[in-house]
């Protein structure tokens, strides 16, 4: 029995180090993805048909294709542009590094999903309040800042929480596709590697699953606190309830 406990502790230590990469990928891509998503959402609702169609097409393309292939495709595309673009600019060392490109592709992916969530929330903003603000003499940007955006973020928060968890899960695919520098390993590739050494699938994948679960629960908890804060003025607001599928 002590042998098992020891084996679990060894796995916890090894996979704990690997989790740092998944956390890094998620932390580096989430803020960027959120910022871009707001822009794409605004573009999608722009009066300019070209901009609206481009943003709509972007959302459809990234939501309609597997992240796994997006990683392969964008890495080989970035590589194809290396000699003609990145090298002359002197940024090739940065662009093709998995620690930069991984979060970038994750951000491009989550931008599309988040923009769709925000777009849905935008359409659900009560029209009456916007009209009232207009009648009040508020300008476009003031209306957005003070009336529309607070509604959007409140409406979108539960779905966005799910998106963040899904994004964290998607980080497991980065090292299955990009070249590995100096033997870096994330949670999933490390668990796979451990399995290939001793074929103990239950042990290694359970510990890896426990790490994913722990981080997911932490995300739900923190985002739940934020949601309570967002809804603090609404007496009797329902607690955060999650939908299971990605938006």
């Amino acid at each position, binding site marked *: 029995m002590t042998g098992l406990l020891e084996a679990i502790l060894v796995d916890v230590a090894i996979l704990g180090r690997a989790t740092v990469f998944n956390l890094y990928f998620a932390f580096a891509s989430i803020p960027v993805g959120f910022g871009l998503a707001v822009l794409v959402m605004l573009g999608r609702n722009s009066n300019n048909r070209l901009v609206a169609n481009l943003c709509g097409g972007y959302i459809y393309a990234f939501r309609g294709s597997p992240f796994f292939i997006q990683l*392969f495709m964008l890495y080989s595309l970035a590589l*194809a542009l290396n000699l003609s673009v990145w090298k002359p600019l002197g940024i090739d060392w940065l662009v093709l590094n998995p620690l930069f490109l991984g979060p970038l592709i994750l951000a491009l992916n989550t931008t599309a999903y988040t923009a769709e969530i925000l777009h849905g929330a935008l359409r659900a903003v009560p029209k009456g309040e916007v009209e009232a603000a207009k009648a009040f003499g508020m300008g476009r940007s003031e209306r957005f800042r003070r009336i529309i955006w607070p509604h959007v973020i409140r409406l979108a928060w539960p779905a966005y929480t799910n998106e963040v968890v899904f994004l964290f899960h998607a980080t497991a695919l980065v090292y299955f596709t990009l070249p590995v520098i100096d033997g870096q390993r994330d949670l999933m590739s490390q668990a796979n590697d451990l399995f290939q050494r001793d074929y103990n699938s239950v042990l290694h994948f359970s510990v890896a699953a426990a790490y994913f679960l722990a981080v997911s629960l932490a995300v739900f908890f923190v985002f739940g606190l934020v949601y309570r804060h967002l809804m603090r003025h609404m007496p009797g607001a329902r607690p955060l309830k999650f939908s299971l599928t990605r938006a």
Partner: protein
Amino acid sequence: MTETFEFWVSYLTNGRHLNWYASFQYTVIAALLGGAFALLFGIGGAALRNSSLPPLKLLGTIYINMVRGVPDVLFFIFFPLAFEQLVELVIAQSACPAGGGAGVWPPCPEANWFLGTGEYLLLASVSLGIVYGAFTANVISGALNSVPRGQLEAARAFGMTNWQVLSRVHIRQMWVYALPGLSNCWLLLIKATSLLSLLQITDIVRGANLLGAPNFSRTAGVIHGDWRWGYYLALLLFYILVTYLSEKAFAAITRWASRGMPMAERV
């Protein structure tokens, strides 16, 4: 001009490419079979979730929620490996002499269960079924609860038995409420079929890599540089097309299922 055209035609129809085109069948089979399993597990999971027996209800709730915390790719890799080992362990009980070597797998050669592409494909489909079955169970469980109580009570008042209420009214009405969610599950599932190469299947993704990577060997065909992104782009367009067609199909099914139901059109 015709020369380059002829070159591309012959290049894109050589044996390597024909192999690649043929490998699309794995993706299609995994999607259809995985979808069927997902529906099966989904109905089972929803039945557990809505069960009145607390242990079954708990089981259903755990099943539905596990996919929330653990990535699909982990299930996808783990389930086939663990299932293979379980089968081999069971065979080993009778086939192997006691005290087989430690740290080796399978415990003895007689207990080996060979996994080829067909076996992996089946196991991959079951994995997809387990993961997306949990999503589906959530959708179906929600849809069952969305059917207006009044309709069920009306059916009972007509003298229908519990089973008749369930099969003739409850489940039939449920589909309309479930379709948007099911459509979502299906779209997630088809995207997950891109992971087949992680299970030793030479699928369209691995095929694209092998075809597109630079070739500097005379005997391996046309010598070319890195063409991978072109192949991957083709795969992206393939998936986007499948997504588009799936959405159209689900819209048509929804229209058909909700005919004569003015309530449901707002769902």
